Protein backbone atom coordinates (compact mmCIF):
# COMPACT_ATOMS: atom_id res chain seq x y z
CA UNK A 1 0.00 0.00 0.00
CA UNK A 2 2.74 2.37 1.05
CA UNK A 3 4.63 1.77 -2.20
CA UNK A 4 1.56 2.62 -4.26
CA UNK A 5 0.85 5.72 -2.13
CA UNK A 6 4.45 6.94 -2.59
CA UNK A 7 4.49 6.47 -6.36
CA UNK A 8 1.07 8.11 -6.62
CA UNK A 9 2.25 10.98 -4.42
CA UNK A 10 5.31 11.43 -6.64
CA UNK A 11 3.19 11.48 -9.78
CA UNK A 12 0.84 14.06 -8.26
CA UNK A 13 3.76 16.23 -7.06
CA UNK A 14 5.19 16.06 -10.55
CA UNK A 15 2.26 17.85 -12.12
CA UNK A 16 1.32 20.08 -9.19
CA UNK A 17 4.86 21.48 -9.13
CA UNK A 18 4.36 22.70 -12.70
CA UNK A 19 0.62 23.36 -12.45
CA UNK A 20 0.89 26.59 -14.42
CA UNK A 21 1.75 24.43 -17.40
CA UNK A 22 -0.23 21.27 -16.55
CA UNK A 23 -3.45 22.91 -15.36
CA UNK A 24 -3.31 26.59 -16.31
CA UNK A 25 -2.41 26.06 -19.97
CA UNK A 26 -5.17 23.54 -20.82
CA UNK A 27 -7.75 25.69 -19.02
CA UNK A 28 -6.74 28.68 -21.13
CA UNK A 29 -6.90 26.64 -24.36
CA UNK A 30 -10.39 25.40 -23.53
CA UNK A 31 -11.52 28.88 -22.61
CA UNK A 32 -10.41 30.04 -26.07
CA UNK A 33 -12.51 27.28 -27.71
CA UNK A 34 -15.48 28.37 -25.63
CA UNK A 35 -15.12 32.04 -26.48
CA UNK A 36 -14.43 31.53 -30.20
CA UNK A 37 -16.84 28.70 -31.03
CA UNK A 38 -19.45 30.05 -28.63
CA UNK A 39 -19.26 33.46 -30.29
CA UNK A 40 -19.21 32.12 -33.86
CA UNK A 41 -22.01 29.58 -33.48
CA UNK A 42 -24.22 31.09 -30.79
CA UNK A 43 -27.79 31.40 -32.18
CA UNK A 44 -27.01 29.38 -35.32
CA UNK A 45 -27.22 25.97 -33.71
CA UNK A 46 -29.81 24.63 -31.34
CA UNK A 47 -28.88 21.06 -30.50
CA UNK A 48 -31.48 20.46 -27.81
CA UNK A 49 -34.64 22.59 -27.73
CA UNK A 50 -34.24 25.70 -25.66
CA UNK A 51 -30.52 25.13 -24.96
CA UNK A 52 -27.99 27.83 -25.89
CA UNK A 53 -25.11 26.56 -28.00
CA UNK A 54 -22.45 27.76 -25.55
CA UNK A 55 -24.21 25.90 -22.72
CA UNK A 56 -24.24 22.77 -24.91
CA UNK A 57 -20.55 23.28 -25.63
CA UNK A 58 -19.26 23.56 -22.03
CA UNK A 59 -19.70 19.91 -20.87
CA UNK A 60 -18.13 18.69 -24.12
CA UNK A 61 -15.12 20.95 -23.57
CA UNK A 62 -14.84 19.82 -19.95
CA UNK A 63 -14.82 16.17 -21.02
CA UNK A 64 -12.32 16.89 -23.80
CA UNK A 65 -9.92 18.44 -21.30
CA UNK A 66 -10.43 15.60 -18.84
CA UNK A 67 -9.53 13.06 -21.55
CA UNK A 68 -6.61 14.94 -23.10
CA UNK A 69 -5.03 15.78 -19.75
CA UNK A 70 -5.42 12.30 -18.33
CA UNK A 71 -3.63 11.00 -21.42
CA UNK A 72 -0.98 13.70 -21.26
CA UNK A 73 -0.23 13.01 -17.59
CA UNK A 74 0.60 9.33 -17.72
CA UNK A 75 2.19 9.44 -21.17
CA UNK A 76 4.45 12.43 -20.59
CA UNK A 77 5.48 11.32 -17.12
CA UNK A 78 6.45 7.82 -18.20
CA UNK A 79 8.18 8.76 -21.45
CA UNK A 80 10.22 11.44 -19.63
CA UNK A 81 11.23 8.91 -16.99
CA UNK A 82 12.19 6.43 -19.68
CA UNK A 83 14.22 8.94 -21.67
CA UNK A 84 16.02 10.50 -18.70
CA UNK A 85 16.51 7.03 -17.23
CA UNK A 86 15.10 7.80 -13.79
CA UNK A 87 12.49 5.07 -14.32
CA UNK A 88 15.18 2.75 -12.88
CA UNK A 89 14.42 4.02 -9.37
CA UNK A 90 10.94 2.54 -9.68
CA UNK A 91 12.08 -0.56 -11.58
CA UNK A 92 14.73 -1.37 -8.95
CA UNK A 93 12.19 -1.19 -6.13
CA UNK A 94 9.73 -3.90 -5.09
CA UNK A 95 6.82 -1.98 -6.67
CA UNK A 96 4.68 -4.47 -8.61
CA UNK A 97 3.34 -3.77 -12.09
CA UNK A 98 -0.16 -3.60 -10.58
CA UNK A 99 0.90 -0.90 -8.10
CA UNK A 100 2.72 0.91 -10.89
CA UNK A 101 -0.42 0.85 -13.04
CA UNK A 102 -2.69 1.96 -10.20
CA UNK A 103 -0.42 4.86 -9.24
CA UNK A 104 -0.08 6.24 -12.77
CA UNK A 105 -3.82 5.88 -13.44
CA UNK A 106 -4.77 7.56 -10.16
CA UNK A 107 -2.51 10.50 -10.95
CA UNK A 108 -3.99 10.74 -14.46
CA UNK A 109 -7.52 10.71 -13.08
CA UNK A 110 -6.67 13.42 -10.55
CA UNK A 111 -5.06 15.61 -13.20
CA UNK A 112 -7.98 15.05 -15.60
CA UNK A 113 -10.53 15.90 -12.94
CA UNK A 114 -8.62 18.95 -11.66
CA UNK A 115 -8.34 20.42 -15.15
CA UNK A 116 -11.95 19.44 -15.91
CA UNK A 117 -13.21 21.14 -12.76
CA UNK A 118 -11.27 24.30 -13.55
CA UNK A 119 -12.68 24.37 -17.09
CA UNK A 120 -16.16 23.76 -15.69
CA UNK A 121 -15.76 26.58 -13.17
CA UNK A 122 -14.61 28.99 -15.89
CA UNK A 123 -17.39 27.83 -18.25
CA UNK A 124 -20.03 28.19 -15.54
CA UNK A 125 -18.92 31.78 -15.06
CA UNK A 126 -19.89 32.49 -18.70
CA UNK A 127 -23.08 30.46 -19.13
CA UNK A 128 -25.56 29.07 -16.67
CA UNK A 129 -25.57 25.27 -16.68
CA UNK A 130 -28.14 22.86 -15.31
CA UNK A 131 -26.84 19.84 -13.39
CA UNK A 132 -29.42 17.17 -13.99
CA UNK A 133 -27.58 14.08 -12.73
CA UNK A 134 -24.14 14.95 -11.30
CA UNK A 135 -23.27 11.36 -10.39
CA UNK A 136 -23.66 10.29 -14.02
CA UNK A 137 -21.34 13.11 -15.05
CA UNK A 138 -18.82 12.10 -12.38
CA UNK A 139 -18.97 8.43 -13.38
CA UNK A 140 -18.21 9.24 -17.03
CA UNK A 141 -15.44 11.65 -16.05
CA UNK A 142 -13.79 9.05 -13.79
CA UNK A 143 -14.02 6.20 -16.29
CA UNK A 144 -12.93 8.44 -19.16
CA UNK A 145 -9.89 9.73 -17.27
CA UNK A 146 -8.90 6.20 -16.26
CA UNK A 147 -9.30 4.96 -19.85
CA UNK A 148 -7.14 7.74 -21.25
CA UNK A 149 -4.61 7.39 -18.44
CA UNK A 150 -4.27 3.75 -19.41
CA UNK A 151 -3.91 4.59 -23.10
CA UNK A 152 -1.24 7.12 -22.11
CA UNK A 153 0.72 4.39 -20.34
CA UNK A 154 0.53 2.17 -23.42
CA UNK A 155 1.71 5.00 -25.66
CA UNK A 156 4.66 5.76 -23.38
CA UNK A 157 5.65 2.11 -22.91
CA UNK A 158 5.78 1.34 -26.63
CA UNK A 159 7.47 4.64 -27.56
CA UNK A 160 11.19 5.30 -27.44
CA UNK A 161 11.02 9.02 -28.17
CA UNK A 162 8.81 11.94 -27.17
CA UNK A 163 7.86 12.44 -30.85
CA UNK A 164 6.24 9.03 -30.92
CA UNK A 165 4.07 9.85 -27.93
CA UNK A 166 3.23 13.19 -29.52
CA UNK A 167 2.23 11.37 -32.72
CA UNK A 168 -0.06 9.10 -30.71
CA UNK A 169 -1.62 12.17 -29.15
CA UNK A 170 -1.89 14.24 -32.33
CA UNK A 171 -3.00 11.49 -34.71
CA UNK A 172 -5.22 9.41 -32.43
CA UNK A 173 -6.31 11.11 -29.22
CA UNK A 174 -6.94 14.63 -30.57
CA UNK A 175 -8.94 13.52 -33.68
CA UNK A 176 -10.96 11.04 -31.65
CA UNK A 177 -11.86 13.67 -29.06
CA UNK A 178 -12.67 16.32 -31.68
CA UNK A 179 -14.86 13.85 -33.59
CA UNK A 180 -16.64 12.60 -30.50
CA UNK A 181 -19.37 15.24 -30.60
CA UNK A 182 -17.75 17.86 -28.38
CA UNK A 183 -18.76 20.66 -30.73
CA UNK A 184 -21.93 19.17 -32.24
CA UNK A 185 -24.60 16.53 -31.75
CA UNK A 186 -23.93 13.56 -33.99
CA UNK A 187 -27.61 13.68 -35.02
CA UNK A 188 -26.73 16.65 -37.19
CA UNK A 189 -24.31 14.43 -39.17
CA UNK A 190 -25.06 12.48 -42.39
CA UNK A 191 -25.95 8.80 -41.67
CA UNK A 192 -22.50 7.44 -42.64
CA UNK A 193 -20.67 9.77 -40.24
CA UNK A 194 -23.25 9.06 -37.55
CA UNK A 195 -22.53 5.35 -37.82
CA UNK A 196 -18.80 6.00 -37.78
CA UNK A 197 -19.17 8.16 -34.67
CA UNK A 198 -20.72 5.22 -32.88
CA UNK A 199 -17.46 3.34 -33.41
CA UNK A 200 -15.60 6.05 -31.51
CA UNK A 201 -15.52 5.16 -27.79
CA UNK A 202 -14.94 8.81 -26.90
CA UNK A 203 -18.41 9.62 -28.29
CA UNK A 204 -20.06 7.67 -25.45
CA UNK A 205 -17.91 9.47 -22.90
CA UNK A 206 -18.86 12.93 -24.13
CA UNK A 207 -22.50 12.03 -24.72
CA UNK A 208 -22.92 10.34 -21.34
CA UNK A 209 -21.10 13.17 -19.54
CA UNK A 210 -23.43 15.68 -21.19
CA UNK A 211 -26.43 13.65 -20.02
CA UNK A 212 -25.34 14.41 -16.47
CA UNK A 213 -25.90 18.09 -17.16
CA UNK A 214 -28.94 18.26 -19.46
CA UNK A 215 -30.72 14.95 -18.87
CA UNK A 216 -30.72 14.51 -22.64
CA UNK A 217 -28.30 12.57 -24.85
CA UNK A 218 -27.87 11.07 -28.31
CA UNK A 219 -27.47 7.55 -26.91
CA UNK A 220 -29.01 5.92 -23.81
CA UNK A 221 -26.62 6.83 -20.94
CA UNK A 222 -26.75 3.43 -19.26
CA UNK A 223 -25.70 1.77 -22.52
CA UNK A 224 -22.93 4.38 -22.93
CA UNK A 225 -21.70 3.66 -19.42
CA UNK A 226 -21.61 -0.06 -20.16
CA UNK A 227 -19.62 0.51 -23.37
CA UNK A 228 -17.20 2.85 -21.62
CA UNK A 229 -16.75 0.41 -18.77
CA UNK A 230 -16.09 -2.45 -21.16
CA UNK A 231 -13.54 -0.31 -23.06
CA UNK A 232 -11.79 0.55 -19.81
CA UNK A 233 -11.69 -3.10 -18.81
CA UNK A 234 -10.23 -4.13 -22.17
CA UNK A 235 -7.64 -1.33 -22.32
CA UNK A 236 -6.50 -1.70 -18.70
CA UNK A 237 -6.19 -5.47 -19.05
CA UNK A 238 -4.04 -4.97 -22.14
CA UNK A 239 -1.96 -2.35 -20.30
CA UNK A 240 -1.44 -4.64 -17.32
CA UNK A 241 -0.34 -7.47 -19.59
CA UNK A 242 2.06 -5.11 -21.33
CA UNK A 243 3.51 -3.93 -18.02
CA UNK A 244 3.79 -7.46 -16.70
CA UNK A 245 5.72 -8.53 -19.79
CA UNK A 246 8.28 -5.80 -19.08
CA UNK A 247 8.12 -4.78 -22.74
CA UNK A 248 10.53 -1.86 -23.35
CA UNK A 249 10.93 -1.39 -19.61
CA UNK A 250 12.87 -4.43 -18.42
CA UNK A 251 15.13 -5.42 -21.27
Amino acid sequence: MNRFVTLCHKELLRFFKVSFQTVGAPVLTTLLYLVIFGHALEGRLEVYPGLRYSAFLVPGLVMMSVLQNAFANSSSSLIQSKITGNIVFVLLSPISYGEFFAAYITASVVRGLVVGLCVLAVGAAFVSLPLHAPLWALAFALLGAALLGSLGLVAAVVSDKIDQVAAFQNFAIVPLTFLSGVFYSIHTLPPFWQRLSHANPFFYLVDGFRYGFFGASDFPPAASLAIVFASLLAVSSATLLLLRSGYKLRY
Partner: protein
Amino acid sequence: MQKRYGALRALAGVSLEVEEGEFFGLLGPNGAGKTTLINVIAGLARADSGEARVLGADVRADYRRARRMLGVVPQELVFDPFFTVRETLRLQSGYYGLRANDAWIDEVMHHLDLTAKADANMRSLSGGMKRRVLVAQALVHKPPVIVLDEPTAGVDVELRQGLWQFVRRMNREGHSIVLTTHYLEEAETHCSRIAMLKEGRVVALDTTRNLLGSFSGLELRLHIDRAALPAGMPGRVVAADGGEFRVRLANYLELEEALAGLRQAGVAIREMEVHPPDLEEVFLRLTGRSS
Protein backbone atom coordinates in the same frame (compact mmCIF):
# COMPACT_ATOMS: atom_id res chain seq x y z
CA MET B 1 23.09 -17.33 -17.14
CA GLN B 2 22.76 -16.37 -20.79
CA LYS B 3 21.53 -13.19 -22.39
CA ARG B 4 21.43 -12.01 -25.98
CA TYR B 5 20.56 -8.62 -27.39
CA GLY B 6 19.79 -9.40 -31.03
CA ALA B 7 23.02 -10.63 -32.55
CA LEU B 8 25.09 -9.56 -29.56
CA ARG B 9 25.78 -12.20 -26.95
CA ALA B 10 26.01 -10.13 -23.79
CA LEU B 11 26.26 -13.08 -21.40
CA ALA B 12 27.50 -16.34 -22.87
CA GLY B 13 27.00 -18.56 -19.85
CA VAL B 14 28.11 -16.85 -16.66
CA SER B 15 27.96 -18.78 -13.43
CA LEU B 16 29.24 -17.42 -10.16
CA GLU B 17 28.42 -17.03 -6.52
CA VAL B 18 29.24 -14.14 -4.22
CA GLU B 19 29.57 -15.09 -0.56
CA GLU B 20 27.65 -13.26 2.13
CA GLY B 21 29.62 -10.38 3.58
CA GLU B 22 32.15 -10.41 0.75
CA PHE B 23 33.62 -7.39 -1.04
CA PHE B 24 33.48 -8.75 -4.56
CA GLY B 25 34.89 -7.19 -7.71
CA LEU B 26 33.50 -7.62 -11.20
CA LEU B 27 36.09 -6.54 -13.74
CA GLY B 28 36.31 -6.57 -17.47
CA PRO B 29 36.65 -4.37 -20.54
CA ASN B 30 33.72 -2.42 -21.96
CA GLY B 31 31.11 -4.76 -23.35
CA ALA B 32 32.28 -7.71 -21.26
CA GLY B 33 28.79 -8.11 -19.80
CA LYS B 34 29.30 -6.64 -16.32
CA THR B 35 26.36 -4.25 -16.47
CA THR B 36 24.11 -6.82 -18.17
CA LEU B 37 24.87 -9.23 -15.34
CA ILE B 38 24.02 -6.60 -12.75
CA ASN B 39 20.86 -5.62 -14.63
CA VAL B 40 19.62 -9.20 -14.60
CA ILE B 41 20.25 -9.45 -10.85
CA ALA B 42 18.50 -6.12 -10.31
CA GLY B 43 15.52 -7.07 -12.48
CA LEU B 44 16.25 -4.35 -15.05
CA ALA B 45 16.92 -7.02 -17.66
CA ARG B 46 15.69 -10.58 -18.02
CA ALA B 47 18.03 -13.46 -18.74
CA ASP B 48 17.24 -15.73 -21.71
CA SER B 49 18.17 -18.73 -19.60
CA GLY B 50 19.52 -19.40 -16.16
CA GLU B 51 18.58 -17.86 -12.88
CA ALA B 52 19.78 -15.32 -10.37
CA ARG B 53 19.18 -15.27 -6.63
CA VAL B 54 19.79 -12.62 -4.02
CA LEU B 55 20.28 -14.27 -0.62
CA GLY B 56 18.17 -17.17 -1.85
CA ALA B 57 15.38 -15.06 -3.38
CA ASP B 58 14.84 -15.64 -7.09
CA VAL B 59 14.95 -12.28 -8.88
CA ARG B 60 11.84 -13.09 -10.93
CA ALA B 61 9.68 -15.48 -8.91
CA ASP B 62 10.40 -13.77 -5.60
CA TYR B 63 11.23 -10.31 -6.93
CA ARG B 64 9.85 -8.38 -3.95
CA ARG B 65 12.18 -10.07 -1.48
CA ALA B 66 15.11 -10.03 -3.91
CA ARG B 67 14.79 -6.32 -4.59
CA ARG B 68 14.38 -5.40 -0.93
CA MET B 69 17.72 -7.08 -0.23
CA LEU B 70 19.48 -5.35 -3.08
CA GLY B 71 20.70 -1.77 -3.41
CA VAL B 72 22.01 -0.84 -6.84
CA VAL B 73 23.98 2.26 -7.77
CA PRO B 74 23.44 2.52 -11.52
CA GLN B 75 26.25 3.51 -13.81
CA GLU B 76 24.31 6.24 -15.64
CA LEU B 77 24.02 9.55 -13.83
CA VAL B 78 20.21 9.60 -13.66
CA PHE B 79 18.00 11.84 -11.53
CA ASP B 80 14.49 13.21 -11.37
CA PRO B 81 14.63 16.96 -12.02
CA PHE B 82 11.35 17.66 -10.24
CA PHE B 83 12.66 16.99 -6.75
CA THR B 84 15.17 18.04 -4.09
CA VAL B 85 17.73 15.65 -2.60
CA ARG B 86 15.64 15.00 0.50
CA GLU B 87 12.44 14.50 -1.52
CA THR B 88 14.27 12.07 -3.79
CA LEU B 89 15.46 10.02 -0.80
CA ARG B 90 12.04 10.07 0.88
CA LEU B 91 10.35 8.91 -2.31
CA GLN B 92 12.90 6.16 -2.74
CA SER B 93 12.24 5.01 0.84
CA GLY B 94 8.52 4.94 0.10
CA TYR B 95 9.10 2.74 -2.95
CA TYR B 96 10.44 0.17 -0.50
CA GLY B 97 7.44 0.61 1.79
CA LEU B 98 9.39 2.65 4.38
CA ARG B 99 7.55 5.58 5.88
CA ALA B 100 9.47 7.15 8.77
CA ASN B 101 13.01 6.86 7.42
CA ASP B 102 14.34 10.37 8.08
CA ALA B 103 16.85 9.36 10.76
CA TRP B 104 18.60 6.96 8.36
CA ILE B 105 18.27 9.39 5.44
CA ASP B 106 20.03 12.04 7.56
CA GLU B 107 22.78 9.59 8.47
CA VAL B 108 23.35 8.56 4.86
CA MET B 109 23.40 12.19 3.74
CA HIS B 110 25.87 13.00 6.51
CA HIS B 111 28.26 10.23 5.48
CA LEU B 112 28.06 11.17 1.83
CA ASP B 113 28.50 14.86 2.62
CA LEU B 114 25.09 15.74 1.21
CA THR B 115 23.56 17.43 4.25
CA ALA B 116 24.25 20.95 2.98
CA LYS B 117 22.48 20.11 -0.28
CA ALA B 118 19.46 18.37 1.30
CA ASP B 119 16.99 20.96 0.06
CA ALA B 120 18.68 21.74 -3.26
CA ASN B 121 16.93 20.69 -6.45
CA MET B 122 18.57 17.72 -8.17
CA ARG B 123 19.01 19.79 -11.32
CA SER B 124 21.28 22.27 -9.53
CA LEU B 125 23.78 19.65 -8.34
CA SER B 126 27.18 18.96 -9.90
CA GLY B 127 27.89 15.55 -11.42
CA GLY B 128 29.79 14.39 -8.34
CA MET B 129 26.93 15.44 -6.07
CA LYS B 130 24.39 13.64 -8.26
CA ARG B 131 26.52 10.52 -7.98
CA ARG B 132 26.42 10.79 -4.18
CA VAL B 133 22.63 11.00 -4.30
CA LEU B 134 22.56 7.85 -6.44
CA VAL B 135 24.60 6.08 -3.79
CA ALA B 136 22.29 7.39 -1.06
CA GLN B 137 19.23 6.22 -3.02
CA ALA B 138 20.65 2.72 -3.21
CA LEU B 139 21.11 2.66 0.56
CA VAL B 140 17.78 4.08 1.83
CA HIS B 141 16.42 0.64 2.63
CA LYS B 142 19.67 -0.64 4.24
CA PRO B 143 20.04 -3.48 1.74
CA PRO B 144 22.20 -6.43 2.83
CA VAL B 145 23.63 -6.59 -0.71
CA ILE B 146 24.98 -3.45 -2.35
CA VAL B 147 25.92 -3.33 -6.02
CA LEU B 148 28.05 -0.44 -7.22
CA ASP B 149 28.28 -0.18 -10.99
CA GLU B 150 31.27 2.06 -11.71
CA PRO B 151 30.57 4.23 -8.66
CA THR B 152 33.60 6.48 -8.98
CA ALA B 153 33.39 7.30 -12.71
CA GLY B 154 33.84 11.05 -13.02
CA VAL B 155 34.01 11.60 -9.29
CA ASP B 156 36.57 13.82 -7.58
CA VAL B 157 39.23 12.40 -5.26
CA GLU B 158 37.63 13.74 -2.10
CA LEU B 159 34.31 12.01 -2.73
CA ARG B 160 36.09 8.86 -3.79
CA GLN B 161 37.81 8.68 -0.40
CA GLY B 162 34.60 9.44 1.50
CA LEU B 163 32.62 6.98 -0.57
CA TRP B 164 35.09 4.14 0.01
CA GLN B 165 35.23 4.84 3.73
CA PHE B 166 31.45 4.60 3.87
CA VAL B 167 31.21 1.49 1.70
CA ARG B 168 33.93 -0.26 3.69
CA ARG B 169 32.09 0.56 6.87
CA MET B 170 28.90 -0.97 5.42
CA ASN B 171 30.97 -4.01 4.45
CA ARG B 172 32.41 -4.32 7.97
CA GLU B 173 28.87 -4.15 9.34
CA GLY B 174 28.01 -7.21 7.28
CA HIS B 175 26.74 -5.85 3.96
CA SER B 176 27.91 -7.76 0.91
CA ILE B 177 29.40 -5.47 -1.72
CA VAL B 178 29.64 -6.13 -5.46
CA LEU B 179 31.71 -3.61 -7.34
CA THR B 180 32.34 -3.11 -11.02
CA THR B 181 35.05 -0.68 -11.87
CA HIS B 182 37.50 0.40 -14.50
CA TYR B 183 39.91 1.58 -11.83
CA LEU B 184 41.83 -1.60 -11.17
CA GLU B 185 43.62 -0.16 -8.17
CA GLU B 186 40.22 0.31 -6.53
CA ALA B 187 39.37 -3.35 -7.01
CA GLU B 188 42.84 -4.31 -5.81
CA THR B 189 42.50 -2.19 -2.68
CA HIS B 190 38.97 -3.11 -1.66
CA CYS B 191 37.93 -6.46 -3.12
CA SER B 192 38.71 -9.74 -1.43
CA ARG B 193 37.64 -11.74 -4.48
CA ILE B 194 37.43 -10.88 -8.14
CA ALA B 195 35.72 -12.20 -11.25
CA MET B 196 37.04 -11.09 -14.60
CA LEU B 197 34.62 -11.08 -17.49
CA LYS B 198 35.38 -11.06 -21.17
CA GLU B 199 32.86 -11.34 -23.98
CA GLY B 200 30.15 -12.54 -21.64
CA ARG B 201 32.25 -15.22 -19.95
CA VAL B 202 34.10 -15.46 -16.66
CA VAL B 203 37.79 -15.74 -17.57
CA ALA B 204 39.08 -15.66 -14.00
CA LEU B 205 37.47 -16.06 -10.61
CA ASP B 206 39.67 -16.09 -7.55
CA THR B 207 40.76 -14.19 -4.49
CA THR B 208 42.57 -10.97 -5.26
CA ARG B 209 45.69 -12.36 -3.58
CA ASN B 210 45.71 -15.53 -5.70
CA LEU B 211 45.11 -13.60 -8.88
CA LEU B 212 48.04 -11.34 -8.15
CA GLY B 213 50.12 -14.33 -7.07
CA SER B 214 49.45 -16.27 -10.23
CA PHE B 215 50.95 -13.43 -12.20
CA SER B 216 53.92 -12.97 -9.94
CA GLY B 217 56.88 -10.99 -11.03
CA LEU B 218 58.20 -7.48 -10.96
CA GLU B 219 58.66 -4.78 -13.48
CA LEU B 220 61.89 -2.84 -13.29
CA ARG B 221 61.81 0.57 -14.94
CA LEU B 222 65.26 1.96 -15.59
CA HIS B 223 66.82 5.09 -16.99
CA ILE B 224 70.55 4.55 -17.56
CA ASP B 225 73.42 6.42 -19.18
CA ARG B 226 73.68 4.17 -22.24
CA ALA B 227 71.55 2.95 -25.10
CA ALA B 228 71.77 -0.78 -24.39
CA LEU B 229 71.57 -2.97 -21.34
CA PRO B 230 74.67 -5.03 -20.53
CA ALA B 231 74.65 -8.61 -21.83
CA GLY B 232 73.57 -11.35 -19.43
CA MET B 233 70.98 -9.23 -17.61
CA PRO B 234 68.23 -11.41 -16.19
CA GLY B 235 64.56 -10.89 -17.12
CA ARG B 236 62.81 -9.97 -20.32
CA VAL B 237 62.91 -6.50 -21.83
CA VAL B 238 59.35 -5.45 -22.67
CA ALA B 239 60.09 -1.89 -23.74
CA ALA B 240 63.19 0.07 -24.68
CA ASP B 241 63.43 3.70 -25.66
CA GLY B 242 66.88 5.34 -25.74
CA GLY B 243 68.24 4.92 -22.24
CA GLU B 244 64.86 3.91 -20.79
CA PHE B 245 63.98 0.26 -20.29
CA ARG B 246 61.17 -1.78 -18.82
CA VAL B 247 62.31 -5.22 -17.76
CA ARG B 248 60.08 -7.96 -16.43
CA LEU B 249 61.67 -10.02 -13.66
CA ALA B 250 60.49 -13.20 -11.99
CA ASN B 251 61.30 -12.24 -8.38
CA TYR B 252 63.41 -10.09 -6.10
CA LEU B 253 66.43 -12.40 -6.49
CA GLU B 254 66.52 -11.55 -10.18
CA LEU B 255 66.28 -7.89 -9.25
CA GLU B 256 69.42 -8.24 -7.14
CA GLU B 257 71.23 -10.02 -10.00
CA ALA B 258 70.14 -7.33 -12.44
CA LEU B 259 71.45 -4.54 -10.24
CA ALA B 260 74.70 -6.43 -9.67
CA GLY B 261 75.07 -6.86 -13.44
CA LEU B 262 74.58 -3.14 -14.00
CA ARG B 263 77.19 -2.26 -11.36
CA GLN B 264 79.75 -4.70 -12.82
CA ALA B 265 79.27 -3.20 -16.25
CA GLY B 266 79.82 0.26 -14.78
CA VAL B 267 76.41 1.53 -15.81
CA ALA B 268 75.15 4.65 -14.05
CA ILE B 269 71.50 4.52 -13.06
CA ARG B 270 69.76 7.87 -13.51
CA GLU B 271 66.29 6.76 -12.38
CA MET B 272 64.84 3.48 -11.20
CA GLU B 273 61.41 2.20 -10.20
CA VAL B 274 60.26 -1.26 -9.15
CA HIS B 275 56.62 -2.19 -9.67
CA PRO B 276 55.07 -5.17 -7.90
CA PRO B 277 52.46 -7.12 -9.86
CA ASP B 278 49.12 -5.37 -10.13
CA LEU B 279 45.67 -6.21 -11.37
CA GLU B 280 46.22 -4.13 -14.45
CA GLU B 281 48.81 -6.64 -15.52
CA VAL B 282 46.57 -9.62 -14.71
CA PHE B 283 43.64 -7.96 -16.39
CA LEU B 284 45.53 -7.19 -19.58
CA ARG B 285 46.98 -10.68 -19.81
CA LEU B 286 43.68 -12.40 -19.17
CA THR B 287 41.79 -10.25 -21.59
CA GLY B 288 44.48 -10.82 -24.17
CA ARG B 289 45.64 -7.27 -24.59
CA SER B 290 49.07 -7.66 -23.10
CA SER B 291 52.18 -6.87 -25.12
